[in-house]
């Protein structure tokens, strides 16, 4: 597990090896640590805006002592697998815009206001907690339910932002976003009690039905 001080040292070491400036968005446990919602994370998840920036970062990570790693061992055959680098117990996942089943949208980028600069060349913006929850539903890990519950318990959550985020994902072509979100919230409620209000689940269900009807109509026409 990587604690925040260790994360700082790693990112500083990489920033010193960077040949050009790079900017990325921190998601998952990394972002949660910037908000004080988590004490340690299993890996560092970063989303870049372009492959060029990711390559610059990856090159610097390798120069700083990391090794390239095959993402199939962790992500199996999932779409939009990241590039990965690791050293010892520390692993860094490098995505470009798409995170498996979700896209790091323009709205998410705007909401990422917390910024951290490492040295002179590396700028990280922490994803908004609402978007961290949304992105967590793309994975199947039990820890993610715990993380989402921690965010909901310790921060004031605007459910509309999360639902609109999922709707936005559907518009961006990620068809199962609403389904995943609803399922994720159901699992949270099953494990942690009535954390997500029933009206939120009802709204997701209504939107999902709408989506299904629209898809059926579109298939009939086609």
């Amino acid at each position: 597990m990587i604690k925040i001080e260790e994360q700082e040292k790693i990112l500083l070491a990489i920033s010193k090896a960077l040949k050009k400036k790079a900017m990325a968005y921190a998601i998952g446990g990394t972002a949660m640590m910037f908000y004080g919602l988590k004490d340690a994370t299993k890996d560092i998840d970063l989303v870049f805006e372009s492959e060029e920036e990711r390559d610059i970062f990856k090159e610097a990570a390798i120069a700083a002592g990391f090794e390239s790693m095959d993402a199939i061992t962790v992500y199996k055959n999932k779409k939009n697998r990241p590039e990965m680098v690791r050293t010892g117990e520390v692993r860094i996942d490098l995505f470009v815009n798409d995170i498996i089943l979700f896209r790091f949208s323009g709205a998410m980028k705007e909401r990422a206001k917390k910024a951290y600069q490492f040295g002179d060349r590396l700028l990280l913006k922490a994803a908004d907690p609402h978007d961290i929850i949304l992105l967590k539903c793309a994975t199947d890990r039990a820890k993610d339910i715990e993380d989402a519950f921690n965010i909901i318990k310790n921060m004031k959550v605007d459910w509309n932002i999360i639902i609109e985020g999922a709707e936005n994902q559907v518009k961006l072509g990620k068809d199962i976003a609403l389904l995943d979100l609803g399922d994720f919230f159901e699992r949270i409620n099953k494990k942690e009690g009535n954390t997500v209000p029933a009206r939120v689940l009802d709204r997701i269900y209504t939107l999902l039905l709408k989506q299904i009807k629209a898809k059926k109509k579109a298939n009939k026409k086609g």
Partner: protein
Amino acid sequence: MKIIELLKALEGIQTIKSVMLLLNADKKKAIYYVHRLRKAGYVKTSGASNKTRVYHISLENRLQTQSYYDVINRYAPIGINPLEETRIYGKEITPEEAIVFAIKANSVRVIIAALALFRKIRDWALLSRLAKGELKRQVCALYDVAKTIMRVRKMPKRFKNTAAPHKEDKYAYIIPGLSSDNFKGIEKAWKVYLPLNKADLEDYR
């Protein structure tokens, strides 16, 4: 209570009494909660005038980062509390960098607060490297404004000479659309529109 829950519940400025009220705990328990947060690195302690201990509880204490506003607030007569800021790891922000940041921040309040930094500039060569072109003229113009209200470090002639505007240079705005009523002479000398008047500098008197 988990550390994260404690942090979120007590984030901000607290005393033992306020902790007792917030968490509905007795004095012993309140002290214990603060002790746990301090052990995790989230607490900075200062003293109030009546010898009460004041605890600044924040995630940022543990992160040990710095922001440009921290440097500005260290010297400014009245501090700035920004809504958003970039925290910086792994390097010490110099007053020179903070001045350039303040000019680019596009805010009158930040510029007024940053005038105090002219008392702390030592590395004019660094400032010259950071502020190029019309930015250098803006630095010089603000330096002249700062000189009218406080004692400042002397600007080397070389810096001034390299910043001097040319005939073909146009007037530059520090903040688009804002110019001064009281500092026309400085504006003319540097071909820079200043976004402040004498009344804005009351905090320095």
